[in-house]
């Protein structure tokens, strides 16, 4: 049974579109990246799954249960970290944890203590006195302390320092090993690439692709910048399949490349290369790749 299954999930805010016809499946034990720019509909999708928003049409099922009718039973099995975790100013993380523990029927908060130590979370200070990153750590603990079967995290690493981002990604991998499905919403391609098995790309409220991470990156164009130690005719590279947007200036050639890597390496190896830089595609470049494919299709 799928951890998440949506069919034509649509949410309009009056006349404004939130999401439209989102159909996807997330399997148990899978880390599913939900990638899209700000305002694309990621949070709307999550809030609809959590029954905080009611769908205009379509359906969402979590563990086979209807997201609206069975929302309480669903929430017993999941953990959720909102994008900008907040809990009021006066309460401490420990007070929030104690309440959530009682609501979830979890008496042993040992795992929460371990996580607090691991993430160096300050549970004793009022949440209003904490930085966004430190609040986010408390939110993360509240989302996973009860060992959920499904973890939904919305922009989880925003505000976390690089060390804690690493720790978070390690935790996501551990949760996956435990059999937990993770629905990770992000606009950081790098973050998604490192932990996700599959990625759904959403833009302007529509899910435009669902792919395995390797396939997604393999199809996307990389930005290549090469500085040659000798004069090279740029046309030689522009003839290479997969090269686009080539420009040459002061012995440095820049282009986008979406072809066979070995062909590129062979072409470059024919010359003396002083410096080479191959950058990951940005999220925008991946979107462009998909739009190009759609236009061509």
């Amino acid at each position, binding site marked *: 049974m799928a951890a998440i299954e949506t069919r034509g999930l649509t949410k309009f805010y009056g006349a404004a579109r939130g999401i439209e016809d989102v159909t996807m499946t997330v399997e148990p034990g899978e880390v599913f990246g939900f990638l899209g720019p700000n305002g694309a509909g990621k949070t709307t999708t999550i809030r609809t799954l*959590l029954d*905080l928003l009611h769908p205009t049409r379509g359906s969402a099922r979590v563990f086979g249960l209807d997201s609206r009718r069975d*929302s309480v039973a669903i929430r017993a099995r999941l953990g959720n970290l909102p994008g900008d975790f907040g*809990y009021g100013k006066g309460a401490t993380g420990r007070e929030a944890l104690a*309440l*959530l523990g009682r*609501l979830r029927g979890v008496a042993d908060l040992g795992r929460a203590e371990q996580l607090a130590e691991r993430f160096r979370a300050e549970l004793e200070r009022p949440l209003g006195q904490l930085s966004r990153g430190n609040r986010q750590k408390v939110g993360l603990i509240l989302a996973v302390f009860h060992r959920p079967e499904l973890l939904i995290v919305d922009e989880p690493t925003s505000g976390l320092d690089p060390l804690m981002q690493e720790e978070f990604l390690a935790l996501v991998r551990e949760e996956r090993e435990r059999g937990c499905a993770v629905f990770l919403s992000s606009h950081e391609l790098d973050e998604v690439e490192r932990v996700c098995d599959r990625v759904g790309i959403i833009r302007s409220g529509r899910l435009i692709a669902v792919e395995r991470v390797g396939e997604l990156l393999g199809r996307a164009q990389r930005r290549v910048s090469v500085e040659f130690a000798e004069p090279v005719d740029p046309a030689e590279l522009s003839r290479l399949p997969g090269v686009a947007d080539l420009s040459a200036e002061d012995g440095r050639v820049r282009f986008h490349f979406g072809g066979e890597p070995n062909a590129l390496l062979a072409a470059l190896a024919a010359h003396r290369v002083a410096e080479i830089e191959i950058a990951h595609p940005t999220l925008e470049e991946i979107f462009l790749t998909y739009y190009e494919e759609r236009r061509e299709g």
Partner: protein
Amino acid sequence: MSALIAARLHERRRSLLSWGLPIGLWSAFVVAIYPTVEDALSKAIASYPEALKQAFGIAELNSVEQYLNAEMLSLIVPLAVGYLAVRSIAAGLSGAAESGRLDVLLSAPISRSRLVASGFAATAVELAAVLAVGLALTALGSLLAGSGLSFTKALAGFANVWPLALLAAGFGVVVTGWSLRTSVVTGSIAGVLVAMYVADLIGRLDTDLDWVRYGSVFRYYGRAIDEGIDPLTFLGVTAVAVACAALGALLFERRDLAA
């Protein structure tokens, strides 16, 4: 649900100091000065126009209980505690939505209606506690000044505020089912309370307009400190408050909780 109520009460514990203490100290001051102003007050009241005395429920001020009622329990305490009730409800629902707390709580396996019910119940307890602090300080003031305030009568006077304030909380829940903006919830219900008081006042000033009082909870509020609590109106207003909360919970269950 008891966990939610306990957590809400823990968060709202300061209202005993911020609301119970000022109300209690002010009321204590009122009863404490009564022996020194008693004679002057009687003369002054005798010179007031009858309609004015009737409108403000000060036909007689020949006891400390009547003085406490006129100064505090006829207007200030019900409006203040009514406003506290709305603030308390708003903090637990619309305020929680604004702070993100609602998202966290509704990630746990509890229904929205339970969340509303627990917030309403916690507010009911908070109001009772604030009124109890007010009553205790008032009784202490009387004791220290030797004003001779009847504790039983004072208890009836303060207790009678509770259903009225609870009704304000019930109205607050209904508005929350429509708007999750704290300023809208508190502002609109504060306005309703004041409008109800004014409607009651107009009805008492002009008997031809007595019918407007039927829409005001103050018509049913009465003078419990003199006449004792009317169980029918006490329970009736409480029942309407609970019904409003139930309606609000239904609306809250159906609405979107946008980020």
